[in-house]
């Protein structure tokens, strides 16, 4: 008889434990709420009572934070919480059919908790396992390579209430799928070597090497890392902070996951280099909630590095060089990948992007100078410290030096990680991953660019196609309108709700795309989509709103036919059936006279 899921612990006890673990520091509110959620399966009101009383925080603030993050539940959730990753690549692998199968197998309606409180099944934004999907999260842990068989097995395990910790380990196996290694993944890492090289010279020298390397930010925006470190070093402040951004939320991206699993030493060593260069004494790694399964591994690496005096006080015996890293875990919010929203989240608040300027590099964490870099940037900085800026600048293209991890998913034989020097042609990547009859690729995720076959000679580089890494492949059978619609749904779900143009605009855009998909489109709707795109681009508060229309603009520009086919009606028509909208009232009143119906418009005009 398998052991049953243990009874949920006392909420007050869970809250007390969580607060003690985080030193009763209100800045750690999000981490405390995460702990309570993990212990209880949701955040019971009694737990909020305790936090409110002990930390003297307004209840509205606690509720505001808890309700912002999609992995935190303020209503009782199922004892098993199953979330299907809903990126287009998961869908192409049949995720929606598997979701239906699981709902049937568990007698539960999608998005609802089963009557006995056992289980809920729903979708979530891309979980970063596009190369081994369809993927799900079970109580926050990633399960990969779903098949019908695996779905049926999971249904049985859930019905028997076997704790996820006792499920077959193979379910949770996450592959690295590295198919091409270059300077970064091909270099064997000896922890401490890059630091030793840097400490042999001054912090100013390291900044100079970084600037000479022309290493640019790997999160997608491409800001020169050396310049950022210098600005952080020179900005006035009481303390300096470093943040490694591992909140890899852009659908199609998974290179941070592979780096964290494979080269965590390089990331933390890069952070220590950053500390040497900027004078920061504290650093954070912001790990997206979906990568919770990497937490123990990362904590172990940190512990090992502390023991080896590569972190902590007097690093490598250098008096006064103190630096340590704490890991903060996110809770399901794409917008926290934006650096100022990430800092808000680090401070235990809702992840609402700040006004910029001032930029984090002068006023970041707690208002102090803060350098936020992507984990890949930190890892690459080790190469600069080891081999010099000039050597690094020799790789890639003049404006995009070094190498880039490219995350290939979608219609190809070998999805996974491919490391190339910048400047590689899209065509080359497609040949290497075994993609055939390719119609288009989406570079850098939904907020990036849609590239049709005629443009496969274009290069991955800041001069041409800037990228955070994702490259989703679509063969000739795929409907590019559906691709764009999936991405639009993603943005509508992830809009943080702070500014009206984005909060309302992304939902309106989603409704418009659904209207076209449901066969109610007309040229009028197409023109309205164009207006909405303009509004989103010009009026939104942050990059999320600015780029929410990119997939639509891109597919309209390159695949107009996919839209044209859906403008079935010459004249405007509603997105819903007006007569059916009266059905409930007809039933309640028992009426069926002529006035109890709405005639089709054509009949009326005839």
């Amino acid at each position: 008889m398998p052991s049953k899921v243990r009874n949920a612990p006392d909420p007050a006890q869970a809250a007390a434990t969580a607060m003690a673990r985080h030193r009763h520091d209100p800045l750690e509110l999000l981490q405390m709420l995460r702990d309570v959620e993990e212990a209880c399966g949701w955040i019971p009101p009694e737990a909020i009572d305790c936090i409110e009383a002990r930390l003297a925080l307004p209840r509205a603030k606690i509720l505001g934070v808890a309700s912002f993050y999609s992995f935190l539940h303020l209503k009782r959730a199922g004892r098993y919480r199953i979330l299907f990753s809903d990126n287009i690549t998961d869908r192409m692998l049949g995720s929606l059919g598997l979701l239906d199968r699981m709902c049937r197998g568990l007698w539960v309606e999608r998005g609802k908790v089963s009557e006995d409180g056992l289980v809920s099944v729903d979708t979530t934004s891309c979980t970063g396992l596009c190369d081994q999907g369809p993927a799900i999260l079970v109580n926050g842990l990633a399960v990969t390579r779903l098949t019908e068989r695996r779905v049926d097995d999971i249904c049985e395990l859930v019905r028997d209430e076997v704790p996820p910790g006792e499920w077959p380990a193979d379910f949770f196996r996450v592959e690295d799928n590295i198919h091409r290694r270059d300077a970064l993944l091909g270099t064997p890492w000896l922890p401490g070597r890059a630091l030793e090289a840097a400490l042999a010279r001054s912090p100013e020298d390291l900044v100079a090497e970084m600037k000479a390397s022309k290493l640019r930010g790997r999160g997608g925006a491409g800001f020169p890392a050396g310049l950022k470190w210098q600005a952080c070093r020179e900005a006035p402040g009481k303390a300096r902070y470093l943040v490694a951004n591992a909140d890899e939320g852009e659908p199609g991206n998974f290179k941070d996951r592979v780096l964290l699993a494979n080269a965590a030493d390089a990331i933390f060593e890069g952070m220590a280099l950053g500390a040497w260069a900027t004078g920061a004494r504290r650093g954070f790694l912001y790990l997206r909630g979906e990568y919770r399964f990497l937490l123990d591994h990362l904590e172990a690496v940190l512990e090992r590095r502390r023991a080896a005096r590569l972190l902590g006080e007097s690093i490598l015996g250098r008096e006064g060089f103190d630096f340590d890293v704490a890991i903060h875990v996110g809770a399901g919010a794409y917008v926290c990948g934006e650096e100022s929203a990430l800092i808000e989240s680090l401070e235990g608040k809702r992840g609402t992007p700040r006004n910029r300027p001032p930029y984090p590099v002068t006023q970041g964490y707690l208002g102090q100078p803060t350098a936020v870099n992507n984990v890949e940037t930190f890892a690459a900085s080790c190469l600069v410290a080891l081999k010099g800026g000039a050597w690094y600048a020799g790789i890639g293209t003049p404006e995009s030096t070094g190498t880039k991890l490219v995350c290939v998913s979608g219609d190809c034989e070998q999805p996974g990680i491919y490391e190339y020097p910048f400047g590689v042609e899209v065509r080359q990547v497609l040949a290497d991953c075994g993609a055939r009859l390719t119609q288009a690729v989406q570079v850098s995720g939904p907020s990036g660019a849609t590239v049709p076959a005629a443009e496969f000679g274009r290069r991955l580089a800041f001069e041409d196609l800037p990228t955070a890494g994702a490259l989703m492949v679509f063969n000739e059978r795929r409907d590019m309108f559906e691709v764009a619609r999936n991405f639009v749904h993603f943005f509508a779900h992830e809009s943080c709700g702070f500014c009206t143009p984005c909060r309302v605009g992304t939902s309106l855009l989603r409704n418009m795309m659904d209207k076209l998909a449901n066969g109610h489109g007309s040229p009028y709707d197409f023109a309205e989509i164009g207006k909405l795109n303009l509004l989103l681009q010009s009026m939104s508060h942050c990059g999320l709103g600015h780029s929410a229309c990119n997939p639509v603009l891109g597919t309209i520009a390159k695949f107009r036919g996919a839209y044209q086919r859906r403008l079935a009606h010459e004249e405007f028509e509603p997105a819903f059936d007006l007569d059916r909208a009266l059905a409930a009232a007809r039933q309640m009143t028992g009426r069926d006279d002529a006035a109890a119906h709405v005639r089709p418009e054509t009949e009326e005009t005839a």
Partner: protein
Amino acid sequence: MDGTAPRKLKVATTSLAGCFGCHMSILDIDERLFALLEKVEFDRSPITDIKEVGQCDLGIIEGGVCNAENVEVLREFRRRCKVLIALGACAVNGGLPAQRNTLSLPLILQEVYRSEPGARYGLIPNDPELPLPLNKVHPLHEVVRIDHFIPGCPPPADAIWKVLTGLLEGKEPALGHGLIHFD
């Protein structure tokens, strides 16, 4: 051209699921109404009490669409008016009446008409004279094509004036800074 004054534009107005507050705002353009009447002639409108809308150049509609009769009137306006304006928050977004959209219609009818014991509470009104409610309240543009929107609850008289005079001059109306707000 016969040399007389140019033909006056025909304008119709109506309130669907609204409170007539937007119409009060139309009256609020005050003495400018006289200047307006030089150029327009009102067709169906609470101002004229004409019940049927004729062929018009401009239709101004306040309120959202909450029942079968609203649908009929709105479609009539769309057919007869060259240009349609959605006036005010309810017409643009559904407004206050749309607050019922989070509840199911049967639940609302049940609560209103059947929640008290006794014979007089037993029946949901079913007279054919009464328009049946739609299961949700919709803004106008979800039911017919709308050409222009004037937001506000109610829109200020100056905003209405600016749009009307703009249209009369044959310009694309724009409210601009001061007359339009977010949040």
